């Protein structure tokens, strides 16, 4: 059974600092997603990572994937308050095209 673990579950950051959220998964998968969720809102797709060594960047966020280690990271550079949200990683299950989500990381950026 595919299990997805995120850490930390809660992250309080100062503006301007860097930090990394980690996503480990237990079985081989073809695809990993990162989503952002604002309070009371739906999920916004941030990145889709497909292959080993994949790296994608959008603004202050950069995601990478190591399929051998079954690890993805979401790196935040010079955090700003607008990045405050909950971030989920989700891994595609090997059959049936289903996503298994991590528990989510609540990010709070303080000025």
């Amino acid at each position: 059974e595919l299990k997805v673990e995120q850490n930390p579950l809660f992250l309080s950051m100062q503006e301007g600092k860097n930090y990394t959220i980690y996503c480990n998964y237990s079985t081989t998968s073809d695809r990993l997603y990162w989503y952002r969720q604002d309070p009371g809102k739906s999920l916004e797709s941030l990145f889709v990572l497909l292959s080993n060594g994949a790296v994608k960047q959008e603004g202050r966020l950069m995601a990478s994937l190591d399929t051998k280690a079954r690890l993805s990271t979401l790196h935040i550079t010079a955090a700003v308050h607008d990045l405050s949200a909950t971030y989920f990683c989700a891994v595609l299950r090997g059959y049936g095209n289903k996503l298994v989500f991590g528990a989510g990381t609540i990010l709070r950026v303080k000025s």
Partner: protein
Amino acid sequence: SAVISQKPSRDICQRGTSLTIQCQVDSQVTMMFWYRQQPGQSLTLIATANQGSEATYESGFVIDKFPISRPNLTFSTLTVSNMSPEDSSIYLCSVEEGRGMDEKLFFGSGTQLSVL
């Protein structure tokens, strides 16, 4: 990206009643997914709805409790039956768009359900 509309956006219901949630997509999609997000929790897949066939339910979810319809390629409904306070959650529909490397999963705005 696909535009996904869900109705209602929120509702407060009495124990023992049922609520039907609608999900409308602005393009034809093969697979639609229904997820539940319990308060402060992550998302859990309830079922997959393909047009023209019975929905496929995940472990822990049954058709009698969560009947799903998928009458065409742009629409689906999820009913939460005989509700109890434990059913209080956000329910989200989701669709795939694109192919291969461009394939992504998009989510509707969600239905926030509170059961008293």
